[in-house]
């Protein structure tokens, strides 16, 4: 419904009264803040990504070289990290979708409408709990002699000592970002016109067929938004791999952090950042060609 104002501004009857200050006056300050403290910083690392390090002093110097990009994309170490990051983020997203879709659909389309608010609130509570704290919680649960061991250690064959593994990393991602995937799926399930589903059943569709042919396409915008919202922070994460992942699960975010922290190679870190941003923007653009963001968030 956030799309309404622009339309309603013109659909008024006759001559419409307007607040007689230019849009610039109200929009000017927020735009300025955004440009100076967000757009220009991104442009700056774009510029830095073409700089080089002075071989003698190790300091950054003005230059125009593609070397940083070449290293980021062709060196086998960084290419592997890049592919691994894609793989871990993709796998986490797929697992999260399997968990998020049924519950989002349940809250939006199946549960008693009177209880929707409460069910949704229960999804939001973990979301509004600190990311760091929730990641930290998994350390305590998964470490050897941790909570899982002490609670279920007596069950034979149950994996213990999961901390610092790929499994732990993916559990952490799925847990931390699951709520932001559930929300848009819930929204599209709630807006789903149930008459179409009824019609499919009336015409003799099996539940599976009704799902594939009717429910799934109609809730696709929510699925796409959920995937995008989950994928971006997972792909860019560096805290979760640090806390939960093993030494072989270093992700791109860790490498960027490292270039600006210990390695102190800003041009290379900048090039990696630009690559990461481009990947996200390309992925998001591809996804959003099939969905309308405002339709999901306006409601």
């Amino acid at each position, binding site marked *: 419904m956030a799309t309404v104002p622009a339309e309603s501004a013109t659909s008024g009857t006759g001559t419409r009264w307007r607040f007689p200050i230019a849009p610039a006056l109200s929009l000017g300050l927020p735009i300025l803040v955004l440009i100076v403290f967000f757009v220009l910083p991104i442009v700056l690392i774009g510029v830095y990504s073409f700089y080089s390090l002075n071989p003698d002093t190790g300091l950054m110097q003005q230059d125009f070289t593609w070397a940083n990009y070449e290293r980021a994309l062709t060196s086998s170490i960084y290419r592997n990290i890049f592919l691994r990051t894609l793989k871990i983020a993709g796998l986490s997203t797929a697992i999260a979708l399997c968990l998020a879709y049924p519950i989002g659909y349940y809250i939006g389309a199946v549960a008693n409408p009177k209880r929707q608010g409460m069910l949704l609130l229960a999804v939001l509570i973990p979301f*509004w709990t600190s990311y760091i704290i929730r990641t930290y919680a998994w350390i305590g*649960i998964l470490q050897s002699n941790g909570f899982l061991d002490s609670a279920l250690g007596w069950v034979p064959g149950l994996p213990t000592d999961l901390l610092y593994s790929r499994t732990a990393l993916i559990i952490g991602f799925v847990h931390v970002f699951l709520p932001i995937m559930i929300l848009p799926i819930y929204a599209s399930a709630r807006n789903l016109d149930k008459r179409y589903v009824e019609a499919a059943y009336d015409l003799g569709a099996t539940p599976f067929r009704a799902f594939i042919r009717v429910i799934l396409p109609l809730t696709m915008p929510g699925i796409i938004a959920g995937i995008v919202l989950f994928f971006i922070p997972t792909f860019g994460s560096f*805290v979760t791999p640090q806390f939960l992942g093993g030494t072989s699960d270093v992700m791109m975010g860790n490498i960027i952090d490292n270039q600006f922290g210990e390695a102190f190679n800003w041009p290379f870190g900048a090039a990696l950042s630009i690559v990461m941003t481009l990947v996200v923007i390309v992925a998001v653009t591809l996804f959003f060609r099939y969905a309308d963001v405002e339709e999901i968030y306006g409601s």
Partner: protein
Amino acid sequence: MAAEASRPARRGGTLLRIHAGLVYVFLFAPILVVALTSFNPEGRATIPTGLTLDWYSALMEDEQLLDALWTSLKVAVLTALIASTLGLLAAYGLSRYRFPGRGAVQGLFYLPMLVPAVVSGVALLTWYNRIGIDLGYVTILLAHVIFALPFTLTIILTSFAGFDTQLEEAAQDLGATPLRTFRYITLPLVMPGVLGGALIAFTLSFDEFVLTFFVAGGGVQTLPIVIYNRIRYLLSPEINAIATIVMAFSIGLLLLGTLASAIKGRGEGAAES
């Protein structure tokens, strides 16, 4: 609404309900484990054999954590004020005017959501370094405002959308100046959205870690930063205690916000009927 007009197809409802229950367990278990551990005499996540408040009393003497908590609260309040003000200005401009490039401007405001936080963090770090702002309160605050603005704006835009512009026209016809119209008609009508936006900005700022990690510098430490450092370098059981307090506080705030909007919704519903 449409959901009630036709009964939803409830096939597979039982399976969906079981699935939802399990997902809720998954979402809440870690939070409950932290809360449980904060009372565990062992100071680590196990099935507790007793209960203690030792970690809470240790927390009361932990200057670093308490200072960080205070810093986070200050930053979050200022972020809420600034982000909701900027959000109000932007929402007003976007919903009251039509101008070329309006879509692009709106897109610009959502841009911070699209860029991975680690990239925004290093970009801000290099930018502050370049233009010569010392890292500290100001740099943290600016980062938090940018981060919170898309969320705040979305909420405020929604309240502008459900708003009868005839009231503004009436005030104008009765001779109110534009500023008075804004102050006495527009602002009160969109206030719930502004407050909701401020609440979101507060919560986002209070929990924000990645941007702060890059732009905080050595001098100022917010709570997530201190907790991060403790987790990395020295595990201290007081973390569970402060985490439990913070979670209780966040949940309380969320419930309060929901309650307020529920009461408001009921009031509006009554007025309509």
